[in-house]
């Protein structure tokens, strides 16, 4: 038994070392920037970091404000772009950020981005509030219905995401979830690679009876959404906010927002498969360009 355990330990240790070398040499995972919670309770990245994308095809940068992407040359006629991992866009080169495509298409404006993966709608509005000091003309907020659901404690309480408690009428700021473990995981490239590689397949759906039908849950939440919008009207300048709905947004949700008299752009990918990566629902450079074209049409 001793010999067996010894050999297993040697094998695993050698495997981990070999795996780590391979993971780092071939950039099997992208590097993940470190976060902090700022003085307003918003999670943002520690400024001036840089790292590699998956495959090492390009680098990403965190600017001096703690957001991915470059800062504009000047802040006149400014439009802010706020969103989650779609806008954060670590999977594409720097040139494929929304702000770059929009600047090309609408040169009369300047653009700046403020994005972080996992941002909810209410958190995006909180960020927009901070950015109001730059006197932007418009805040473009890129979301879909999930970001609305994640904004409300009563629908799904998520401690790591900034949410609105509708009962208390109060913002509950997100907390960092296991930062120590995450730091180890992000730096142990091989383990992080395994985690990302098999994350989605850890759980298989359990067999269901033939009569069990799954329904879109958000359609039951329109009352909550109305309360959220009422709160937002009172606490944020929604006139300045344009909600850019991703192409995968449910049509019922899109219609609901239009009925609320909000500024909405519904992006349309016309089932163009090139919009997104094959094994990742995030947009490709092509998808970002197409999105920017549709947004610039609206801005004009």
């Amino acid at each position, binding site marked *: 038994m001793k010999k*067996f355990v010894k050999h297993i330990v040697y094998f695993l240790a*050698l495997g981990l070392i070999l795996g780590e070398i391979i993971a780092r040499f071939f950039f099997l995972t992208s590097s993940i920037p470190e976060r902090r919670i700022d003085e307003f309770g918003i999670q943002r990245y520690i400024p001036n970091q840089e790292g590699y994308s998956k495959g090492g095809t390009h680098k990403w940068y965190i600017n001096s404000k703690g957001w991915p992407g470059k800062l504009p040359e000047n802040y006149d006629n400014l439009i802010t772009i706020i969103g989650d991992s779609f806008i954060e866009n670590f999977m594409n080169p720097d040139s494929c950020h929304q702000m770059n495509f929009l600047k090309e298409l609408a040169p009369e404006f300047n653009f700046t981005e403020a994005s972080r993966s996992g941002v909810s709608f209410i958190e995006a509005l909180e960020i927009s509030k901070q950015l109001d000091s730059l006197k932007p003309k418009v805040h473009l907020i890129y979301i879909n219905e999930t970001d609305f659901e994640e904004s409300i404690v009563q629908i799904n309480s998520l401690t790591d995401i900034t949410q609105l408690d509708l009962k208390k009428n109060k913002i509950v700021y997100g907390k960092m979830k296991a930062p120590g473990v995450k730091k180890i995981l992000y730096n142990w490239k091989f383990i992080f690679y*395994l985690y990302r590689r*098999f994350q989605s*397949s*850890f759980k298989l759906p359990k067999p269901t*009876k033939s009569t069990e039908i799954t329904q879109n849950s958000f359609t039951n939440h329109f009352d909550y959404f109305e309360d959220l919008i009422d709160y937002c009207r009172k606490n944020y300048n929604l006139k300045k906010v344009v909600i850019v709905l991703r192409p995968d947004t449910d049509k019922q949700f899109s219609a609901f927002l239009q009925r609320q008299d909000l500024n909405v752009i519904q992006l349309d990918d016309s089932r163009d498969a090139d919009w997104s990566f094959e094994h990742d629902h995030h947009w490709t450079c092509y998808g970002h360009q197409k999105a920017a074209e549709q947004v610039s049409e609206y801005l004009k």
Partner: protein
Amino acid sequence: MLFNSLEFFIFLPIVFVVYWFITNRWLRLQNGFIVLSSYVFYGWWDWRFLSLIAFSTLVDFSIGILLNKEEREKRRRSLLWLSLIVNLGFLGIFKYYNFFVDSFVDAFSFFGREIDGRSLDIILPVGISFYTFQTLSYTIDVYKRKLKPTSDFVAFAAFVCFFPQLVAGPIERATNLLPQFFSKRNFSYNLAIDGLRQVAWGLFKKIVIADNCAKYVNLIFADYQEFNSGTLLLGAFFFAFQIYGDFSGYSDIAIGISRLFGFDLKQNFAFPYFSRDIAEFWRRWHISLSTWFRDYLYIPLGGSRGGTAMKVRNTFIIFVVSGFWHGANWTFIVWGTLNALYFLPLLLAKRNRLNTDIVASDRWYPNLKESLQILATFFLTLIAWVFFRAKSVSVGFDYIVKMFSMQFFQSPIKDFDISILFLLLVFILIEWMGRKSKYAIEGISTLPGYFRWSFYFGLIILIFTFTGEQQEFIYFQF
């Protein structure tokens, strides 16, 4: 719990440590721990169905004891029937009830009478066909006085629910597995290393071969009307390797894990795609089920001892029942019937035991005759697999008709990744080289350490690299 899931990779080391380091001194405790961990393993999927296994265990244990005490033949037969009714009753309700109801409704509808058949809204308990057959083998052997019943309930419960082979076999005979629960297990380094090697090979078969073939199989069978005959042939070819990689991979993992715990399970697959005729194929494919049907159905029916009519009848019965065992669908019955039709000419010409040795056992490669025989046998099984995979019998026929149409190069499949063909080629070569062993890479143990470790790391890298969308083991649904 799936063998290729994260939960299992956590579960297995914990069970291994507790089994060898804590419970090893007391056999009863160790058997009890096997029962507990097996119930956790099974209950992870749905704990409610544990009651079925527990009830089945209790019934067969009690009947075994009563059979031993009872001398009157009539009473003994009644006890056997009770066991058959309970075990096959559960199987009938959970697996076949809806099939019979729907078939009756369809049959009446065909003759213009509409009847109201009420299907049950039930889930098929994972592995019910496997553990039912395993417990039945115990009762039948005790009834036939081939086996003395056990009075050790814990050992019997461990035999019924032994987690490595609980949900998808191999279907172990009580005569082989049960006695292993009565003697103290001693850890063997060689056995454990051999077990791990077989587990790695099983995972390779499942994750790299089967799951990557499944991607194209699902695509092609879902829209078979859109594809040309070449693509449909490729779809059937991939399914042949999907089902082989999936099921024999599961068996390899099950046997390998059992070795880690000091148990020796029977070989379930013996390189069936290198068979030279269908009879040889059935001696090499799902051996534990084929031999079960042979011993508990074919031979009691008279086997091949009677006249031609009896041989034909028995052959059809065994193949059709075997098909039906796989699932409550006419497609499986057609699959079984087709195999009976393949097998029958060999049986009638008394050529069914012509190829009992290993093909080209003294040579590197087969001769022309053997190659043609292997290809012809593979092709026949491939046609039958179409029905096994098709949604319905009519779809199966339609698929085959299209497969033989003349549009060989029209509208080929898009985004085809050629690497799967390369992987299959490597896989077939390794299987060929290892065909004399119990599993393909068993012989690697005689090679130098640096080669072995490089091979293992290579295998693991391939598993990580080619891990596709996780698919359930096909045989779970049976």
